[in-house]
């Protein structure tokens, strides 16, 4: 099947800064792709290039089989939602929602406009707010209206630029589920940009990991979480972050620099590797070598132990039922099948 949207070798430079370095990607017709990366990775530039606010020096953008690289933004039928709410504060919610439909060149009848506004308001459960002025809304309500303004036009593609960053953590957690469910219901493809790993894992059909204007890896959340291509990608996902230890081969074991044997060597690999193991893939008991618990963080459903294991600072996630405190001894055991080894 042909992709809905394709980028081929898209590059964008601002002065000396190469913001995008030959990005190629594809998006299917009913897919939510999350672009994950730190500040300055080029995420926003990528969205602005796709929507037509920036024009790339190199490469092409193809939507539904047609090249749109140099089309005006209005001709692309995309809707973008930004981090700040960008509503007209003195206008009612209804008027804000009507605005994109009243833009010059769009010919909708009064009835059509009303019908679409009601539809969007129902989808986002903001019917009761339609008569209110935007400046009377809470942050979560404002962002719902902003999303409403994007969906009334029934665009071909949604582009979301960290839409939840300005909201409280609790609202973020609720809205990320809502946005993903809404998108699925609408069946419209979406590219969602964020630096928040939980949003990426939770929402994405596929994640694109971006760093310094380049794609490091593309895959389903599970692929990226379980089989990150590099330690850099591995560090982008997971909480607490993955434990990384340089190891060398010795007597059939992977051993740290100071002689701590961690794992059996199972196949022929280079002498030196980087070992990655996620905190939930280490059990606090069953290992041979002792470690001392330094900190216990109670996270509610789980506990995070920070342990000193032969001088290595290791994070272990344990169930809440595992009782221990600072100073206690544990015997970490790495779940071999979950360990990741990279050739450095």
């Amino acid at each position: 099947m042909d992709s809905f949207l394709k980028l081929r070798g898209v590059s964008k430079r601002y002065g000396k800064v190469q913001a995008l370095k030959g990005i190629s990607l594809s998006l299917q017709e009913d897919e939510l792709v999350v672009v994950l990366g730190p500040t300055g990775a080029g995420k926003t530039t990528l969205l602005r290039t796709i929507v037509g606010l920036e024009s790339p020096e190199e490469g092409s953008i193809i939507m539904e089989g047609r090249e749109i690289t140099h089309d005006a933004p209005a001709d692309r039928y995309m809707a973008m939602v930004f981090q700040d709410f960008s509503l007209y504060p003195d206008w009612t919610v209804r008027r804000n929602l009507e605005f994109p439909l009243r833009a010059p060149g769009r010919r909708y009848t009064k009835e059509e406009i009303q019908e679409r506004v009601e539809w969007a308001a129902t989808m986002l459960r903001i019917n009761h707010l339609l008569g209110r002025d935007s400046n009377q809304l809470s942050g979560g309500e404002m962002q719902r209206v902003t999303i409403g303004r994007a969906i009334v036009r029934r665009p071909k593609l949604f582009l979301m630029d960290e839409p939840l960053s300005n909201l409280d953590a609790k609202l973020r957690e609720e809205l990320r589920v809502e946005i993903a469910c809404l998108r699925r219901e609408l069946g419209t493809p979406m590219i969602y940009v964020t630096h928040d790993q939980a949003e990426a894992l939770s929402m994405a059909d596929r994640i694109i990991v971006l760093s310094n204007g380049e794609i490091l890896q593309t895959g389903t959340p599970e692929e990226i979480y379980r089989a990150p291509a590099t330690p850099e990608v591995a560090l982008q996902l997971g909480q607490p972050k993955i434990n990384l230890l340089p190891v060398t081969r010795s007597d059939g074991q992977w051993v740290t620099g100071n002689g701590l044997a961690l794992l059996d060597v199972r196949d022929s690999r280079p002498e030196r590797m980087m070992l990655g193991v996620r905190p939930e893939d280490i059990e606090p008991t069953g290992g041979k070598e002792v470690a001392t618990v330094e900190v216990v963080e109670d996270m509610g459903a789980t506990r995070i132990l920070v342990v000193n294991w032969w001088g290595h600072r290791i994070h272990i996630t344990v169930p809440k039922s595992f009782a221990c405190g600072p100073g206690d001894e544990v015997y970490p055991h790495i779940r071999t099948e979950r360990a990741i080894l990279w050739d450095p």
Partner: protein
Amino acid sequence: MVGRWVEGGVRRYDLLDPLPGCLLTSGPKGGTVSFLELRNLAKTFPDGTRAVRGIDLSVEQGEFIVLLGPSGCGKTTTLRMIAGLETPTEGTIQLDGENVSRLRPSERDVGFVFQLYALYPHLSVRENILFPLKSVGTEKEEQETLLEEVSSRLGLESLLGKYPYQLGGGDHQRVALARAMVRHPRVFLMDEPLGALDSHLRLEMREFIRGQQLALGVTTVYVTHDQEEAMSLADRIVVMDEGEIRQVGTPSEIYDNPSDLFVANFVGSPGMNLLKGEMIRENGTMSFRSGSEEFVFPPSQSIPAGGFVLGVRPEYVSLDREGPIVGKVLMNEYMGSNCFLHTDTALGRITARCEVDSSLRTGDDVHLRLDTEHFCFFDSATGTRVE
């Protein structure tokens, strides 16, 4: 005098005396007054907004306290009153036995770090850190000693010559922290210091701040809306809503025994599942009826019959072929180490925290079982917990 500032060492603070906040030896005076005491503290703004509505809080020396709540709950106003940046309309603030309510910020000996606490852009990192010392006229030699101490502690030695625009987000925040720490204040006040950082940096800085605080033993009041941040940092969490304190307790107390529906939902990611229903007592048994479901318990004396809300955390909901509750999957939310299964049931929406199972898709039917041992009940009229 031995301060916890210097690990294992003894240092004299002649030039910096008095420094009671840094010393473990100066415990609460008289045994009943805590290090930091807020009494009936209230703030009503000129426009009539009652931001803080008479709160009482005692903070022990060396404690890490997190004020947690949604936007507009009064947490920042509370912190700003402690700092002296807002004047309370009512109530008092006592710091180490002294009523500081009317003192200017500079007279309170507190150090603060704010989310957007701008470093002076035209000053180097070194000059930024020294700024608070220069402004109180600390002697040159002592300035150098303190700068060296704080920059080695925070790993800033190589950045001292740089300017703020040359720093990344994490370094920027580390410098702001150094500036707050360099004076050895009695209390650290932090208002969402990590809010502007990328999520992976936030995690790193969170551990860093906690590590520093533990090492220094300086009483800290920290404001956030992020319950995960609160859980991981706090000795005790103060949950606030609408200008009032809803609950004070250790992270596990707050999580396991929320005092009302607000706390039950706000704390936890996602929050507690809340199901409306009726408590029924018949022939010496007690059961809770919600929709067509009935949960039977060993009888307890304290919960009367009537309308209640049943609360159960997502980790106490399990997938079970024989489970009595049928749910339709709304979303299978992958989180890496686990997943959250959001389902629609006859009892309402129920979220289960489970092992990753990518075969479950939106629209699938699942059977759920709730662990009756971990139920919490709330009065459906008042929202308060009943035991």
